[in-house]
């Protein structure tokens, strides 16, 4: 028995359990650790995704914009962003990189500094691509592209920028710009570096134009090389292109209008009365929309912002002026509607209207007394003072009080769309203002005011303020004899439709029969009255001049018109700031616009007018 000698030895077989316990303890510790790693702590999952997946956004092409005649005005061009992933750019030749991009070492360092600064770049992560330089043109991209492989962690992202086929309609079209942090916070669709419409059509119809972004999930190995689509692209999302829009602008008319307004400050708004479609929307001075595209965008934007003539100020929508004599047409209609006057009512004028004993509201020389159409034709101030007196003072009893009479007047006036935003598809429309009864009650005390107290509103001065678009809409409403569509820029959406509110007829309080006399007066104004200078032999049209008093300088010249008189095709309002009396600048401009729109050309015998306007400069160049 060879093994007997071992038998008497101590038996250590119980120690097998110590061995097993050690093994089990290690296993338990490892399982706890694994449970923590794999099930409890989600951060590893995120790190893994940012490691391996490169979710690359595919930007949809933004919807194109056409004018009412199908002319392409806004399209897209590819631009290229240089993206860098900070943790991958180790060990490359910075100097070479800077030379390639034509920047200095300091530029490079500054830019890196900004990228890393979480205050300026809150979305910073060293794992994700950051924009190093944005908006390289195709030309610059071609120079860079072939050298790019030398720089690990640097790659190109293609984007689409706007390209303008014309140099006009900048404010109406608006521009697109990089989203701000506030915009990102408001709408999670946007990510840093995205562009969105920031004004005009681009802003208003952003959701139609932008389409839907897509993305592709790419697999990226440890060296940053793309190894294909994750799950063969099963999870990728194709972008949906933005919808093409047709705007109501007639781009030729728009261009012509901007040329006419060159060197002047003011607005032209032209509307098609039957539809409310805006044919031209001109703010002067203006700028070339292409300035706000591409790498120098912010530089140009800064220059425009600091320009003393405020080219970024959307005058047709935002500038509020007293409507002056153009408002007499409203008075004529409302007073008729209230039964205060009729077409035969005549009032005297002796170079003005005396009121309150010592005061007199002046008027220019014309025959007296005048009937209603004649008062429009000659723009008599006194006539409307008398009419206002008749309403507020003489007939106060009929309404119960002056205040009630004013309320009746106020409601009729507001039915034209004054005192509130019309609802134009322009983002920055202002409402203008018609003083309310309350306003005067507060100012003068309840029932302590009369026609003489507020006499200036009779001729569209004083507290009344209107925007050019409201006056153009007034012209359209008069042309239509009492109704209008909300002026709008959107004519059609490819594969969609325009907002219902632009298909809804708005009817004023004024009975249609009262318009004939106003038409008559406005026709007279053009043919032998205040707007005689704008007369066009072959086109009968109606117009009304106005002068907006300007406490800061020379008065503003206003003219509103519609043409032709029968079956009007265009209603227009022209404002020329600091141009004095309405007839001098606004009338010929409107007249040329009308002729250009209706005929398509300006005949030889009127070229001299055109030349005078085109060369007329009312603002200094500095």
């Amino acid at each position, binding site marked *: 028995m060879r093994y007997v000698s071992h038998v008497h030895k101590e038996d250590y*077989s119980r120690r097998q359990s*110590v061995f097993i316990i050690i*093994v089990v303890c290690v296993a338990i510790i490892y399982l706890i650790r694994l449970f923590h790693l*794999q099930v409890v702590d989600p951060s*590893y999952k995120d790190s893994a995704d940012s*490691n391996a997946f490169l979710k690359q956004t595919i930007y949809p092409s933004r919807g194109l914009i056409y004018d009412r005649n199908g002319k392409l005005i806004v399209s897209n061009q590819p631009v290229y962003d240089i993206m860098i992933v900070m943790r991958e750019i180790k060990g490359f030749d910075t100097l070479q990189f800077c030379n390639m991009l034509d920047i200095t070492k300091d530029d490079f360092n500054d830019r890196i500094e900004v990228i890393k600064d979480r205050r300026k770049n809150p979305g910073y992560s060293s794992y994700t691509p950051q924009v190093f330089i944005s908006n390289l043109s195709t030309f610059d991209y071609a120079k860079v592209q072939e050298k790019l492989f030398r720089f690990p962690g640097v790659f190109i992202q293609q984007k689409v920028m706007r390209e303008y086929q014309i140099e006009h309609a900048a404010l109406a079209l608006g521009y697109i710009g990089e989203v701000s942090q506030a915009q990102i916070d408001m709408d999670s669709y946007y990510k840093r570096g995205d562009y969105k419409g920031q004004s005009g059509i681009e802003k208003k119809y952003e959701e139609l134009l932008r389409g839907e972004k897509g993305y592709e999930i790419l697999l990226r190995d440890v060296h940053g090389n793309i190894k294909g689509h994750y799950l063969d692209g099963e999870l990728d999302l194709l972008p949906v292109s933005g919808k093409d829009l047709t705007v109501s602008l007639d781009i030729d008319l728009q261009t012509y209008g901007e040329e006419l307004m060159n060197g002047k400050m003011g607005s032209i708004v032209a509307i098609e009365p039957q539809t409310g479609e805006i044919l031209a929307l001109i703010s002067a001075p203006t700028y070339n929309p292409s300035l706000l595209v591409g790498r120098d965008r912010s530089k140009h934007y800064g220059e425009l912002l600091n320009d003393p003539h405020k080219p970024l100020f959307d005058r047709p929508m935002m500038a509020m002026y007293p409507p002056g004599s153009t408002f007499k047409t409203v008075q004529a209609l409302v007073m008729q509607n209230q039964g205060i006057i009729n077409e035969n009512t005549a009032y005297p004028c002796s170079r003005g209207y005396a009121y309150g004993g010592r005061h007199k509201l002046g008027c220019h020389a014309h025959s007296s007394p005048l009937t209603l159409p004649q008062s429009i034709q000659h723009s008599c101030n006194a006539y409307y003072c008398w009419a206002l007196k008749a309403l507020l003072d003489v007939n106060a009893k009929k309404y119960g009080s002056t205040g009630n009479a004013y309320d009746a007047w106020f409601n009729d006036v507001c039915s034209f769309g004054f005192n509130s935003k019309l609802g134009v598809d322009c983002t920055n429309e202002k409402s203008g203002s018609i003083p309310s009864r309350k306003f005067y009650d507060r100012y003068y005390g309840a029932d302590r005011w009369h026609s003489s107290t507020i006499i200036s509103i009779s001729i569209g001065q004083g507290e009344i303020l209107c925007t050019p678009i409201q006056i153009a809409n007034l012209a359209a409403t008069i042309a239509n004899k009492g109704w209008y569509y909300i002026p709008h820029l959107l004519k059609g959406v490819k594969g969609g439709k325009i907002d219902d509110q632009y298909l809804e007829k708005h009817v004023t309080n004024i009975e249609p029969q009262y318009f004939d006399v106003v038409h008559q007066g406005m026709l007279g104004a053009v043919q032998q009255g205040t707007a005689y200078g704008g007369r066009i032999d072959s086109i009968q049209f109606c117009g009304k001049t106005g002068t907006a008093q300007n406490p800061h300088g020379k008065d503003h010249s206003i003219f509103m018109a519609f043409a032709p008189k029968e079956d009007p095709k265009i209603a227009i309002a022209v404002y020329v700031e600091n141009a004095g009396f309405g007839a001098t600048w606004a009338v010929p401009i409107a007249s040329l616009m009308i002729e250009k729109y209706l005929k398509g050309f300006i005949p030889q015998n009127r070229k001299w007018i055109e030349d005078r306007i085109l060369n007329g400069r009312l603002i200094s160049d500095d």
Partner: protein
Amino acid sequence: MRAEQNILKNLDWATIIIWFVMVMAGWLTIYAACYDYEHTRIFDMSMRYGQQLVWIAVASVFAILLIAIDTKFYGSIAIPLYVLMIGLLILTIFVAPEVKGSHSWIQIGGFRFQPAELAKYATALCLAKYMSSYGYNIKNSKNFLVTALIIGLPMLIIIAQQETGSALVFAVFILVLFREGLDGDFLIYGALAILFFVLVIKFNNIPLPPDAPIVEHYGYMIVFIIAVLTGIFLIFHYTGDIPMFNVYAITNASIWVLGIILKLIKADLLSYTLISEVSFAASALLFFIYAIIRRSRVHLRVILFFILTAGLCFAADYAFNNVLQPHQQIRIKVVMGLEDDPQGAGYNVRQAQIAIGSGGLTGKGFLNGTQTKLNYVPEQDTDFIFCTIGEETGFLGTTFIVLLYVVFISRLVYLAERQRTPFSRIYGYSVASIFFFHFCINIGMVIGLLPVIGIPLPFFSYGGSSMIAFTILLFTFIKLDTRHTETMAT
């Protein structure tokens, strides 16, 4: 014919099935780890999964051969194989080309082979042979020294090959010795030694606050306090000497009270480190005095413990900063959280954890791992193969593998215990211990609990040397186990 049938019947099929499951799971994992879009054929010899299939086949041939060989053969070749292996290891240092800083691979023709893998096998056999020899007693110091030499010699040579990871494997034989009667205190002292090393490195490297009145070495302080407290345990453990405990406790308490009072009077007069050193020295002195008074050798053992602790403490700092190579220092610091370097040394560990962590509960699915497939994890098919398992099969998969290893090792322990001969038992424990060490170190490293030590996960990691070596290691034992039913008399 009868003998043949007998062998098949006596094979422990449970272990063989576990082996088969591991090898297959390992191969699938290598396939997944190397899988890419250009090479999708399973038997592509240009890819590692294709080559691994060859290694599996070769290993299986070895397995069958080993089962066919007579059991007595293993006992007889144990010592010649060991001597041969020692020679080979030494030779390797001189002939092996440098691969990643170490000289551990021998190149013969197109084959590369790591003798260190063989060394484990040879050492296990030699150890079994020597420890099962007639009259062997581990408590005999001559026997113990020879045993230590058998284990230590290959270890030192492999360290000389700059292959520290493989060398560390030999430390696990302490478990075998423990099973064979090594005093359990050695296990505790071993554990304490590792603990003290970690504590000294970790806490001595903590930067002091700028307003600290005096230089402190918190590592030393903590270790000395633990050592003094261990002294209390040892008093009860060895002697139950209550009077001595009283003196011991009062002495140390007095030193601390006095030290703190002095510190309150003048903060920069002495450091806490000094107080703990004085307390430590006084404790050692007490044991020495009591060894003389009580005429006891047990006390001397405690004094040895104190001396070794002090030596370890002061050596640890020195060894860490002067003996370990910089990359090893950093690996240790990364695991201790002293250094966070996600680009450098921490990169592997960080990426490994990301890969495993991203697997979630159920994993991303076979071949759907992204981290491993896109090469984020280094050595993803060799030392870090566990990442691929974690990423593609999730917590369920990793749990399965961990439990599979526990079952596997437990089975080996069970088999070892049922052996009739000490030779088979000791060899069986060696096999179980080696697998345990690889399991413990490899997974511990991958999940960030242990420093990066480059040793493979048996049957999973890619590589012919390890696949064949582990298979030989295992099947030798399976063959030895076929004799467990035979009577001792044969």
